[in-house]
């Protein structure tokens, strides 16, 4: 009956995959996950439709290299912030894993979230676990064709919506949806919509727990963050064993486990939690809900399978605050603080100063030398600004350029050429100076860029 659980008699290093038919489960943790799924899917499908200042609030415009997140437009030059964000994400994973095990896997991972929806659609069309098994083993009938077709139709529609929404983060979603409705998508848009639709369909429809078991690196290295006080889903073996059904156990002294195997049937990865902690366990707590329901029915106390720690199971006290947790928390808070400060203090102007390489210097009248620089002003602000360019840090130096003020449009880049002139009587060799670019209408928009001025060598 439970082919996927017991090892097959013959086992090579590869085995054909056995589908896991998981039984529907209800209870506290199931409700928690449904809430998480609803919130996360809502975010995913909703955010691209939000508007801000008359534009799509979140849009990663790759061809233009503009990454809009509400009022802020990030340029490729801000990629260090993305790095910081990823560091924060990694530290969060560390922190929550050390504290409560694979929370991410069980409740928040897209693989879990989308699989949940796809399983729900499967149950809607094919029925519960037993009916699905029966349907798959049975011969092709009208009912089977209809049910399978209905499932595929739901899956494919949902996949397409997912792919479309995902691409909608990169290509204006209103135009994208209109284009999809009238079959007027660009070739790249079509490719990525189909690509992500197919990836969703395959991952959530068919691969499911195999992604966690065979592909996901996080699944494997999260165990490195575990210690004896990390919350894990455990079966209370001393209380449950020896297991046996109520009927057969009348004349034997048995543990609390009635061996109903519901915990195995609800498991989305097809393991038996009663064998102890296993790498396949994504800590979804479905077995807890299932077991609690059974314990309620047979009149025994809940918690035969529960969130516990290895220390607790060994009869030692629980300990939430451990050095590991405190260090992760401190690192996480520091990273979040630094990131927030970086965003708050960000000056939406970048300036690159490139000295003309061919010309060392020009001799001009009055005993002065001239160096030429290309100044690239990147105005990441959503307003047009006029910039004045000055130099400091080099005695007697001044800027000569064709225009006094340089106008740069919103979210635009402009290269202007300036000539810096400096008296050459004293100075020799390469000297440092700062090119100061200052917006005339906003004191905060001031960037000082280091550059080099070349005098005569000797």
């Amino acid at each position, binding site marked *: 009956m439970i082919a996927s659980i017991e*090892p097959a*008699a*013959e*086992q*090579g*290093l*590869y*085995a*054909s*995959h056995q589908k896991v038919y998981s039984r529907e489960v209800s209870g506290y943790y199931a409700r928690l996950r449904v809430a998480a799924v609803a919130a996360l899917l809502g975010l995913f499908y909703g955010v691209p439709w939000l508007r801000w200042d008359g534009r799509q609030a979140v849009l990663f415009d790759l061809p233009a290299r503009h990454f809009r997140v509400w009022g802020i437009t990030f340029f490729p030059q801000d990629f260090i912030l993305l790095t910081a964000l990823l560091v924060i994400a990694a530290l969060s994973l560390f922190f929550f894993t050390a504290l409560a095990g694979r929370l991410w896997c069980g409740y928040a991972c897209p693989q879990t979230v989308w699989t949940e929806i796809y399983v729900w659609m499967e149950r809607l069309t094919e029925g519960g676990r037993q009916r699905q098994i029966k349907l798959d083993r049975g011969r092709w009938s009208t009912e089977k064709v209809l049910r399978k077709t209905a499932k595929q139709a739901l899956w494919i529609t949902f996949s397409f919506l997912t792919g479309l929404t995902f691409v909608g983060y990169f290509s204006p979603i209103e135009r994208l949806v209109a284009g999809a409705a009238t079959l007027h998508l660009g070739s790249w848009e079509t490719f990525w919509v189909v690509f992500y639709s197919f990836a969703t369909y395959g991952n959530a429809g068919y691969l499911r727990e*195999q992604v966690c*078991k*065979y592909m996901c690196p996080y699944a494997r290295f999260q165990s490195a963050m575990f210690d004896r006080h990390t919350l894990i889903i455990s079966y209370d073996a001393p209380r449950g064993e020896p297991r046996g059904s109520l009927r057969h156990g009348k004349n034997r002294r048995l543990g609390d486990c009635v061996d109903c195997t519901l915990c195995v049937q609800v498991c989305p990865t097809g393991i038996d939690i009663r064998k102890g902690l296993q790498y396949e366990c994504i800590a979804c707590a479905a077995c807890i809900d299932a077991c609690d329901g059974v314990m309620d029915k047979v009149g025994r106390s809940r918690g035969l399978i529960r969130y516990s720690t290895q220390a607790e199971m060994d009869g030692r006290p629980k300990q939430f605050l451990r050095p590991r947790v405190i260090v992760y928390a401190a690192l996480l808070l520091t990273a979040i603080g630094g990131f927030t400060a970086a965003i708050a203090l960000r000056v939406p102007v970048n300036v690159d100063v490139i000295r*003309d*390489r*061919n*010309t*060392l210097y*020009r*001799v001009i*009248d009055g*005993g002065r030398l001239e160096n*030429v*620089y*290309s100044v690239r002003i990147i105005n990441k602000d959503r307003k047009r600004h006029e910039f004045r360019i000055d130099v400091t840090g080099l005695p007697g130096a001044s800027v000569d350029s*064709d225009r006094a003020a340089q106008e740069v449009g919103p979210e635009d880049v402009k*290269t202007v*050429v300036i*000539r810096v002139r400096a008296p050459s009587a004293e100075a020799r060799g390469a000297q440092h100076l700062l090119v100061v670019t200052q917006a005339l209408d906003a004191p905060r928009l001031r960037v000082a860029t280091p550059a080099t001025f070349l005098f005569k060598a000797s």
Partner: protein
Amino acid sequence: MSPAVAFLIGAVVLANIAGALWLIWWTARSKDPAGAGAQTTTHVWDDDLTEYNNPLPRWWLWLFILTILFGLGYLLLYPGLGTFGGLLHWSSISQYQAEKETAGQALEDRLAGIKTESLVQLSHDPRAMATARNLFALNCSTCHGSDARGAKGFPNLTDGDWLWGGDANTIYQTIAHGRDNAMPAWGGALGPDGVENVLSYVLTLSGRLPEASRTAGMTAQIEAGRGTFKTLCAACHGPDGKGNPTIGAPNLTDSVWLHGGEIEDIRETITHGRLNHMPAHAELLGETKVRLLAAYVLNVSEAANPGRAAGAARPASPGQPAPAAMSPR
């Protein structure tokens, strides 16, 4: 590539693919001597550590096979086996040329409207000048500077002084077909003293060495230099030293010195001569881009000299002030 090397490369590539296949076949089998029913992978570390056999799904194996099939297909279509060029006849140079052609065509299409405009009209067309500025930065600024003001040995394009003439058509000719210019070396023919004489005279042409400051020796030098200049230099630079744009001979009476106006620089020029080369761009860039660049040169020249049309008569040289340090030895 010699046939032997080509054969070797092809053989190594195919042997690697065969090896990969063999590796997949070999690792897919359990090494358990007991045969079927293996519970562990049979790997043993540190005396007694073993690993449970959690078999991978079989479709995983098919992924390996698929990558190998992909590799074979790739080798059939693209170059990879020695000198076999692949059925698609793809090469990086052909792809580059195709892309270049596409980009060139896109530019031609974009600039279709300017074909009828004259160079002077073009130089006032902001849209054309925006493209031209990029073209200049890519192709010209290496020598003439980002601001088109040149460098020692590379002419300033904004000063209104033109070696070959500054009207629109001449500028176009200069860019399209290039210019070669040579100042012969006079050091050997004139000797050190002769060079000093000519140098002194040349300095007076642009108003340096004012008469009031001359010593008797200097006056004699200048007079000797004047004689040499009239016989030798005047052939190109003209009897009055104002140059000759038809052969690119520079005007020596103004303050513009292509190879440096300091005494040392001018002495070097007379003694050892100078060679200048402006490359031809007609082949390299094509007509449309050369026209854009010619218009851009007109544009920057006019912007730096407002109110004076490019190529108009040169202004009377203000003369370079001659600091005390700048007198001939």
